[in-house]
């Protein structure tokens, strides 16, 4: 029907309901931002629960937080920051139409993402061994209400990890398209908008790390000031 049909040969074509490529691209980016806003509110519910319970049970949260591995958490933070850089570079390469570099940077981003998830698996396994997984086998002697911290830890990092898995999964078709040379300086919208998603997932971790890992870093476990 339309003379502007998107085909395999012409992914950059303007769809029939848009007037210009500019309008189409702008609409796609705005749509992506709106989706990210929904993600902000989605995680927001978890952060709200965290704020309330931390306020009520600060000492228990400190004690529980001390069982998390800060070096691993910090390493993972660094890994994600690197992946954000490689993702930004992938978008940059796409803007310049540099096919090989897009592929390289996307691959690096995926690799770093997978590294993050690998470390998380190690951390979760450790928690499982120590009976810190909430549920019938939970055990944290001497501290009441510690389980709430771990519910939030697993819930929030789990949700975050799920978003990373989805992100890595979406990068596969992006990678394949990039290898086929589909992204040029005229059309790189999928890479750009996926980049927004990836950076968002990084931002979530930027907040999760201090809130979960660095609680009461100056205090000894079980003791310390209430505030």
């Amino acid at each position, binding site marked *: 029907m339309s003379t502007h049909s998107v085909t395999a040969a012409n992914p950059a074509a303007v769809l029939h*309901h848009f007037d210009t490529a500019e309008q189409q691209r702008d609409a796609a980016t*705005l749509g992506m931002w709106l989706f990210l806003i*929904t993600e902000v509110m989605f995680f927001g519910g978890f952060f709200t629960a965290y704020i309330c319970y931390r306020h009520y049970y600060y000492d228990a949260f400190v004690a529980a937080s001390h069982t998390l591995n800060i070096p691993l958490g910090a390493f993972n933070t660094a890994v994600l920051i690197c992946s954000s850089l490689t993702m930004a570079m992938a978008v940059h390469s796409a803007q310049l139409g540099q096919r090989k570099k897009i592929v390289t940077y996307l691959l690096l981003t995926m690799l770093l993402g997978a590294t993050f998830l690998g470390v998380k698996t190690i951390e979760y396994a450790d928690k499982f061994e120590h009976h810190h997984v909430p549920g019938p086998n939970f055990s944290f002697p001497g501290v*009441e209400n510690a389980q709430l911290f771990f519910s939030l830890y697993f*819930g929030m990092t789990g949700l975050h990890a799920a978003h990373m898995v989805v992100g890595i999964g979406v990068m596969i078709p992006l990678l394949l398209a990039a290898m086929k040379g589909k992204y040029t300086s005229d059309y790189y919208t999928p890479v750009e908008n996926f980049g927004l998603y990836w950076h968002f997932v990084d931002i979530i971790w930027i907040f999760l790390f201090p809130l979960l890992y660095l609680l009461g870093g100056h205090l000894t476990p079980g003791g310390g000031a209430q505030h």
Partner: protein
Amino acid sequence: MSTVSSTIPEAKPNYLTSDFSIKSWLLTTDHKRIGILYLISISLMFLLGGILAGLIRLELLTPNGDVFQPENYNKIFTMHGVVMIFFFLIPSIPATLGNFLIPLMIGARDLAFPRINLLSWYIYLVGGILTLSAMALGGVDTGWTFYTPYSSTYSNTYVMLTALGVFVSGFSSILTGLNFIVTIHRMRAPGLTWFRLPLFVWAHYATSLIMILATPVVAVTILLVALERGLRIGFFDPALGGDPVLFQHLFWFYSHPAVYIMILPGMGVQSELIAAMSRKKIFGYEVVAISSVAIAVIGFLVWGHHMFVASQSWYAGLVFSFLSFLVAVPSAIKVFNWTATLFRGSNAFLTPMLYAYGFIGLFTVGGLTGLFLSSMGLDVHMHDTYFVVAHFHYVMVGGAIMAFLGGLHFWWPKMTGRMYYEPLARLSAVLVFIGFNLTFFPQFILGYLGMPRRYHAYPEEFQVLNVLSTAGATVLAIGYLFPATYLIYSLFKGEKAPANPWNAKGLEWEQAPSPPPTFNFDHTPEVHEPAYAYAPEKEKEVVHA
């Protein structure tokens, strides 16, 4: 090509006749067809919700709980609420009329993301199937509000499946809102500035803001309940130090703005009906437009009024109470402005107008009784009584559903190219109005007298009012069944509609035939006049002379 016969010699295919195959419907990206797909789906859900309501009213005919076991009664009112709210009211006007009309009203060829539009319908279907499966397997009895710890720990019913269905359907809502916002920002025709937009578009814009900002919070809340119930990862369990009221905060953060998702589109329809039927521009157009956004914004700040007696701190209660009074102001402004528009308008006595009149009266009653409930002192007595039930049915049914029916009738010629049978339509509108009031007004009195909600048995002295209510429900049901029949009948035997049967202003009436072609306009319209630019008053004085 098309085989439809027509009195117009050079009949071009319209969006209905361009392709009759099932595949062309199930894989359509045409916003108009998607609107029709939604119309069919939500109507079926409304029928289901209505049957459940009928069962409730059947039980409440007698003071004893003699029709259903208590557990089953709990399941019935829960499913009535879940189906009506999440699967009927939330999508109703936006996904049907909104989808159909917004591109037409702004001079666009489609919404910004047509494929996402289709996806949103399929997501709605998946959510619906999940929830219906839960019903078929035995239902859920927590109340549509899913309060913890009953829903997360103690209930033995299909909470997870129902919750999953609601969770999934939330994404349908989010995608619709996302589509509308980008479309309205970026795809308006040349000359169509914000303050020339039809108020229907403003209302849907405000609604979409709520969909984007609120729905994710209920999604994560449902996730939290699922984690607690399924994996025993506790968030609300008091035994772990958790707080059940936290669930209520997170739940109502969405569910209060959700009621504005349900009413704002109706207000948008209302503005269109009144302008067209009285042939006047809406009095105070800019103020009504801004009020829509004001309702959306302030509506986020009032949710604590559902929790006055839930051990929320009373300082917080005070703040929420005050803000709840505030949110009534923009709604009241709209009601005053609609009324002012009617003054010296030509006020046709047609079916859409009857629904519009009904809306003004019933929404006003519903809104005012909301104020009673916003006063903490009164709410202490009336919370969880039939007063609340009556209040929200006045706004949801007397308001939103009347607006939906009014809009459906008003735009039916545009959507289908057919006129419905007016005398029967007018009768139905009157039946709906009478049936509605007979059903729900007694419930205000019952609530005031202390009858609790969600109970299937009650003291004998309440029986008369309950019988009246059930009688009203029967009349209301008939009132709803009539449109279902004559509207469907009109598809086959209705008189062919002209492009603009109401002589209304608006791009959908003036620049597109009935029904429109697939791509809406041959040439992008240009807009040079304000909304509702009807001919001035003096032309009508001749008629009055």
